[in-house]
């Protein structure tokens, strides 16, 4: 039950030319579940380790409920981290593993037993207390690790790649368990992932990080519809990019005039880039569009079940478009079509 403020956090490692974590600030509201998203090596784990106190930041501050925790030793912070590979202590059974933090606090063994049982029930593993970590499946180990973290009543729960070691089927199950428990206990939670889909499915808000720099911190929807730059758009599966020159109330491009009803046009530089998600592009044999339409040619058609993907070329510009397979017009390879980029769906950003 904690509000978290990460302020201008910087961390350098010797042997690296850029900071591993470069001036990152994030504010997390009480009870929120947020994702740190970014490619491998962008500094996610380093941020978690600074929050737990396993690493000391070179600059910046970390506040829990407006109090700095930088001078508090790791074991007193009550910020619990669940590591990517679970790290259940191998020579302790499940009960001892889950009860570890209470034992460290010096709680009464009876109380510990009771709480351990409650926690195991919470993660839906009530009957495995006597087993050793080796005798558990990957999914079970993950849930025990979660129980071991939650029993401490952490002010902030950190999960490092919680789903990456599970197979696809277990991943769905675990994802639901994590969100339901997190909402039930109301614990503020931060998790790390390099999988944008996972971040979108789980998180209330996503912090996107490239090369140690925070790109954007916002709700998942925004990353699809209003990416902050090309790399952010690409990370979320963006494939269509059009270079633009800004004019008074329209944009010039290699395929012609483009108009948009975007609000923040004033912030755009004279050279900027438009993007549009494949599912928002419309195509038709006849010209039924008012504006932002262009003549193009279908280069390929890929049927993938519910959707069909078209590659279109307009004056050397390649675009991808994805339409629902049902009720589709009969459009084939090499066909000439009209392509529409709806002005409320197109998104223009600086690069």
């Amino acid at each position, binding site marked *: 039950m904690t509000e978290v403020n990460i302020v201008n956090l910087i961390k350098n490692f010797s042997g690296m030319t850029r900071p591993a974590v470069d001036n990152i600030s994030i504010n997390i509201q009480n009870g929120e579940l947020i994702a740190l998203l970014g490619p491998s090596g962008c500094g996610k784990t380093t941020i978690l*380790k600074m929050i*737990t*106190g*396993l690493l000391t930041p070179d600059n910046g501050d970390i506040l829990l409920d407006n109090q700095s925790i930088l001078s508090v*030793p*790791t*074991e*007193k*912070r*009550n*910020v*619990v*981290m669940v*590591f990517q*590979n679970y*790290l259940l*202590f*191998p*020579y302790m059974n499940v009960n001892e593993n889950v009860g*570890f*933090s209470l034992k*460290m*606090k010096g709680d009464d063994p009876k109380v510990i037993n009771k709480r351990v049982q409650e926690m195991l029930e919470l993660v839906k593993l009530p009957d495995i207390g006597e087993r050793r970590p080796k005798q558990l499946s990957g999914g079970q180990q993950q849930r025990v690790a979660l129980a*071991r*973290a939650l029993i*401490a009543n952490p002010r902030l729960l*950190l999960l490092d790649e919680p789903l990456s070691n599970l197979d696809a089927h277990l991943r769905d199950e675990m994802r639901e368990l994590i969100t339901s428990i997190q909402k039930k206990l109301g614990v503020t939670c931060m998790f790390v992932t390099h999988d944008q889909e996972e971040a979108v499915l789980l998180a209330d808000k996503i912090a996107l990080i490239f090369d140690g720099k925070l790109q954007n911190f916002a709700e998942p929807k925004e990353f699809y519809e209003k990416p902050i730059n090309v790399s952010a758009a690409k990370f979320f599966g963006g494939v269509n990019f059009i270079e633009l020159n800004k004019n008074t109330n329209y944009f010039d491009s290699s395929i012609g005039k483009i108009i948009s009803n975007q609000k923040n046009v004033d912030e755009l530089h004279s050279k900027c880039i438009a993007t549009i998600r494949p599912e928002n592009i419309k195509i038709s044999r006849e010209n039924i569009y008012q504006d932002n339409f262009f003549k193009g040619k279908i280069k390929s058609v890929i049927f993938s079940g519910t959707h069909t993907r078209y590659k279109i070329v307009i004056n050397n510009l390649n675009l991808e478009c994805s339409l629902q397979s049902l009720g589709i017009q009969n459009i084939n390879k090499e066909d000439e079509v009209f392509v529409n980029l709806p002005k409320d769906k197109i998104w223009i950003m600086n690069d």
Partner: protein
Amino acid sequence: MNQNLKKINIYSIYLGAFILVLPIIAFFINAFSFRWFYPQLIPKELSMQAWVRLKLIPREGSRTLEGFLDLWATNPTVIKALINSLTIGFVVTIVSIIIALPAARVLGLFNFKFKKLIIFLMVSPTILPPIAFVLGLNINFISLGFSGSFFGVCLVHLVPIMPYVVLTLTGIFANYNPDFEYQARTLGANKFKTFYLITLPAIAPGMVVAALFAFLVSWSQYLLTFLIGAGKIMTLPLLVFSTASSGNPALTAAISIIFIFPAILILFFTSKFVSGESSATSGFGKI
């Protein structure tokens, strides 16, 4: 495989084993027979005389518990040497492990400048012969007053033992995942508890094996003890050497049996580890 070949194979293994234990057989025959004349293969009579002369077993007639205690209370040379060997071995092993642990952790887990050089400096004493440093050191120790002292002998034993302990523990830590410690810290364990609840159990199996073999290295040390001990510190290897040179086979054999007893015991308990699985069983391993 060809059946005959297989049989030959197995019989040659048995023959090899027999040849290998011949010295041990000879030790026992010699130690328990005082007059074993050529060309007897089996001595005519069993005799405890060697053990009696070493004052380890009382004369016939007084072989009661009290008799043994009385005899040992006179502090016979063998017992004195045994106690010296044990004490030096324990002290050196424990000291070297305490000193080596932090270094091995750092060497096993981190990469840093000069790491290769440091390891090279550490390994050299295990390859270069003791005679290369002990002659020079001896003169230094005489002027420092360490010569002939228990302290000096322990100090010089550290030279062959410390590198061995550092290297084996480094191997263990190279296979160890420090995230386990971090996990314990975030769950509220302080540094001290983390060490004995997490680190120690992980490295214990490998550490015990390293400790036992370190003890054996000290236990077998002749040259270093002889020179630095300057005749004032008597240990078992010194006793074996001097009796062997003076030539009474029965006495030599009896002392040798005492001398090799820990070696066999240690091999027995560690055979599982020395068969090459040690790095797998020590440290949790990076999952």
